[in-house]
């Protein structure tokens, strides 16, 4: 089975007068259908660029990217429009980018339905269902300015889900929220993922969020560097414990990024010594030259 979101060797170069900025330098990522994945990385690591490409708002310079069977590099304008309407939904960090300030919660959802030309008849039920699902039924006729930040982001999730997308992207959805509200919004996303089976990709630098996600992908310098997979295990005494395993991503030509933390701790620099064992590879810092 092919991955629901599949990126391989994605490159995106922004060039301005004389300056070239390589925001993505051969990023590879695969997300299975129904997965809830977090992408973390420092500011400037390229995560927002990745999301812009995945949402069809930007086009990569090279590489391949497929989302739910759509080839993002080969889409026509019409196909791209349909992709945004039906296949994906977005939640951004700033409420202003998610919701129109002069429309109520219900109207913001209806706007999304109207853009996708869904019939007028079913709209009221769909709007009510979504608001109910996200636990903000009381907000139906309120303007964004009359809601809390968390409520606004949940309305934004409802808007993103209006046209029953297969994938939902969220760019720092909790970036402007306090801890309590962050948790509410994150719970809402997890609920959407579990109940509706929507594949969810969250870009965040919030450790709280990433620690609650089964899979966290770290981006560094425009590449996926490491992955953490978390799982709960129940031991023989019936006590649940959380296990996290860290993986590094190996690209097609065998390049590998070691976590910065490892490098500093072992003072690895410039050159390392490799030893091939029967079932693994050892990486040693080189001895300081005598």
């Amino acid at each position, binding site marked *: 089975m092919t991955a629901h979101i599949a990126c391989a060797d994605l490159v995106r170069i922004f060039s301005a007068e004389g300056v070239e900025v390589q925001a993505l330098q051969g990023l590879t990522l695969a997300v299975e259908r129904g997965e809830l994945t977090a992408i973390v990385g420092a500011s400037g690591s390229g995560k927002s660029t990745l999301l812009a490409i995945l949402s069809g*708002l930007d086009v990569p310079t090279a590489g391949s990217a497929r989302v739910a069977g759509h080839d993002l590099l080969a889409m026509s304008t019409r196909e791209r429009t349909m992709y945004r309407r039906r296949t994906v939904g977005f939640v951004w960090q700033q409420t202003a980018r998610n919701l129109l300030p002069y429309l109520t919660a219900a109207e913001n959802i209806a706007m999304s339905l109207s853009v*996708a030309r869904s019939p*007028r008849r079913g709209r009221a039920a769909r709007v009510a269902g979504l608001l109910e699902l996200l636990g903000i039924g009381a907000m139906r006729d309120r*303007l964004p300015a009359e809601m809390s930040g968390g409520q606004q982001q949940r309305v934004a999730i409802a808007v993103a889900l209006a046209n029953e997308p297969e994938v939902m992207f969220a760019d720092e959805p909790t970036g402007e929220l306090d801890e309590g509200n962050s948790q509410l919004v994150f719970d809402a996303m997890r609920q959407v993922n579990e109940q509706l089976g929507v594949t969810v990709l969250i870009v965040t630098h919030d450790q709280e969020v990433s620690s609650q996600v089964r899979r966290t992908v770290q981006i560094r310098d425009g590449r996926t560097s490491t992955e953490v997979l978390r799982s709960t295990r129940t031991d023989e005494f019936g006590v649940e414990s959380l296990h996290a395993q860290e993986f590094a991503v190996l690209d097609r030509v065998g390049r590998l990024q070691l976590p910065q933390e490892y490098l500093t701790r072992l003072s690895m620099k410039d050159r390392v010594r490799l030893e091939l064992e029967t079932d693994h590879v050892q990486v040693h810092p080189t001895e300081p030259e005598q």
Partner: protein
Amino acid sequence: MTRSSRLGTPGLLLRHLRSGALGSLLVAVLIAAAVLAVALAPRAIGQLGTRELRHGLAQESPALLDLTGAGQLGIVTGLPASASLDELVGAGEERLQRIPEDLPAPLSEHVGPTQWVVSTTRHEGFLPHPLPLTFALTLSADLRWLDRIRFVSGSAPVSWDGTLGAEQQPPIPVAISSAAADKVQLVVGDVVGYGLAPVLITGIYEPTDPDDAYWVHESELARPMIVREQGKPDDVRVAAYVDPLTIAALSDEFAAGELSAFLEVDPSGLDYADADELQTQVRQLAATQLSLPSFGSLLFRSGLGDAVERVVQRVTAASALLALSVSGLLGVLLAVFALGVQSVIARRRPALALAAARGAGALQLRSSMVLEGVLLSIPGAVVAIALATVLIPGPVALLDVLPAVVVAAAPPVLFGAMTSPRRLRELRGDLQVRSRHRMRWVAEVAILALAALSLFLLARRGLVASSAAVGIDPLLSTTPLLLATAVCIGVLRLYPVPLLAVQRLLRTRRGAAGLLGAARAIRDPALGFAAALSLVVGISVVVFSTVMATTIRTGLVQGAQDVVGSDIQVSAAHLPAELVDRIAATDGVRGAVAIAQEAGVALTADGKETEVFVVVADTAALHDIRPDIPALTDRVEGAIPLLVSSDWSTRITDAALELAGRDADNAGEIATDAIPGATRHYVLIDRAFAADVGVNAAAPDRMLIGLEPGAAAHDVAAAVESAVTAAQPAQLRGLVVVTTAQQILDEVRASPTVAAMEGALLLAAGVSLLLTMLTVALASIAAATARNRLVGVLRILGMSPRQLRAIQAWELGPVAITAVLVGTGLGLLLPLIVTSVLDLRPFVGGRYPPGPSIDPLWVGGAIGAFVLVVVLAGVIAAAFGRRFAPAGTLKMGEG
């Protein structure tokens, strides 16, 4: 809070369009104002033309305007003496009366019925008493004569029943005008000897309506015509009415005599739109001889065509000038218009970007913007166009409405065109690819090329008064705008250079405000191209209007003085030197010069002798009141200095000149019409040399009077007139004519085009100031968000309110200062271009095309007003900007 949510697409769209309704309303008003201006302009020019046509033609005499025909009346001969009038001339009368209806429209709509008089040839008359004059008589017949006159003595003559050539003839009964009777001292019952048969005065009459144009055309029937020649007795010519039936007995005489017919033209109903057609029709009428029954014929002529053409020239010059002043204004209006449109698009951008991200297609995005454009533009435009037709009534021509429709259609089209999903893509400020630059270069080079081309074409076309048709000459009217845009492009390109120098200078100083202000002005100008353009064009329109107003005022005064020759011109038969001296000494008179002229003086150039007119004047005194004419008082190496009229000067080489056998020196050229009343070919000499060349300087017939500054021309003219009249012999008193330049000026000023022109320039300056204010306010308010954020940051960094105000001043200051400098230069340059490509003479009169006339006081005042307006707008906008910016504009971490 309860609010009902709308879930249907139309409801959502309505909510969307209603957001920011106040801003949209402002833009809608702006669009409506632009449409109104564009809809009014052609109507105003059309109406101006019509008013000028009616005014201009009303000034002309009926003798010039009316369709006047001369020819022979066909008279049926060989009829018995008892023949009726109808049998005699009925067919001719019927044909003549059909003329008006046979004329083509629109000419036919403005003429009255045919009026005609048939006359015998003129024969000498012998008065019953001796008088020192010669007397000639014409017999005239008019079918409607009895309606036109009333008898003051005697009664209407009856028809003559004599026979020409018979031995014994009864006298022909006639009636003469009381003016003629007075002149030749005839009373009822007198018999005048006459070639055909004796003539009996049976009645003396006066016109019932002396103002009737009939008496202008048939003036000899109203009063005698007196021909005066020096050394000869007065030659008095009189026409006398006979009973029309007399035509039967004198049929050969009347058939051989003259038929004079005229159709009165009423200019009060003329329409400017018909001007061209009228000219053609009048010329066609004049080119075709009209056949009348019984071998009669009639040929019309009329000065109407020429008079209309003069008006057309005047209106064309005025409308070209209007177009020029309005074109600059249109530039400012377009800039404001662009700012308005931009502001709407900018306000809709986030919503459109959001919709696009949610999957709205280009069609959906565009149609929502087009719909908004239609809603903003069309209702206001319909009202504006309707208002234009109400304000200036008249027929609505499709071509006139077209520009207004284009302006009204622009916002929806622009809204649609400027909305595309690609443009809405989120731009990364730090990495923004400046790909627009190539397009900007292309556009800028194109505008520069167009400006250069239009200047070149104008220069090549030379000084003309545009085409005959009224309307806006596109080349001329776009030149100032193109030039302004080109200059503005140059300014925006060069503008950072001095600012960088300022910035370098400020870097070494203490105080951050100047440095920051300069850096912002260079890197992130608050006022964009549209605002800068509107500032530059705005001030240039203000300066241009001021200079043009002064130029026109000076041109009008100069034109009037050129016509008169000085401030006052006196024409009289007798102007003795003593009188001239006395007038020169009158209060308010700077100088008075008598001008005499004599024909037939021999001028030898290169051995070839020709006869010229010699104009004699006291050239020293003439130079005093006419500085353009040099004094010719000193002989040049023994030769008499003279000026040659420009029409004649080409025939005179530098070779040795002799005037009446005396050596003469060609001191230069004088414009042919510089001396009023002079013929085309003349030489001017000082009166000191008059006797040398055998010219009698003692018989001047003209006098030029120059006034002291501030003297009341009217009062002086009245005093001069009475003094000159008193000095004339009794019979020549009626010949004194005093003309003042002020009189001519007042007449010219009464013309609608001159009034409109002066008004339009004032209006252009005023509206330009207003629009500039609006631009500055709009641009400044648009920049408020960025400014408030900066101000928030700077306040936290500890800047004092004074420093913050300085930073705000830097926003507007450099652009405004540059605009004032460049715009003033442009405003001074444009009149130079205008006066060198557009001949304003049909409009202001005068000998030479007027050049720009700059009054520093007015120009300074205009610039002052402009600066005041800009500062005021900036202050108001800054105050508003603060109001719109709540304390929460600056949230840490935002932006």
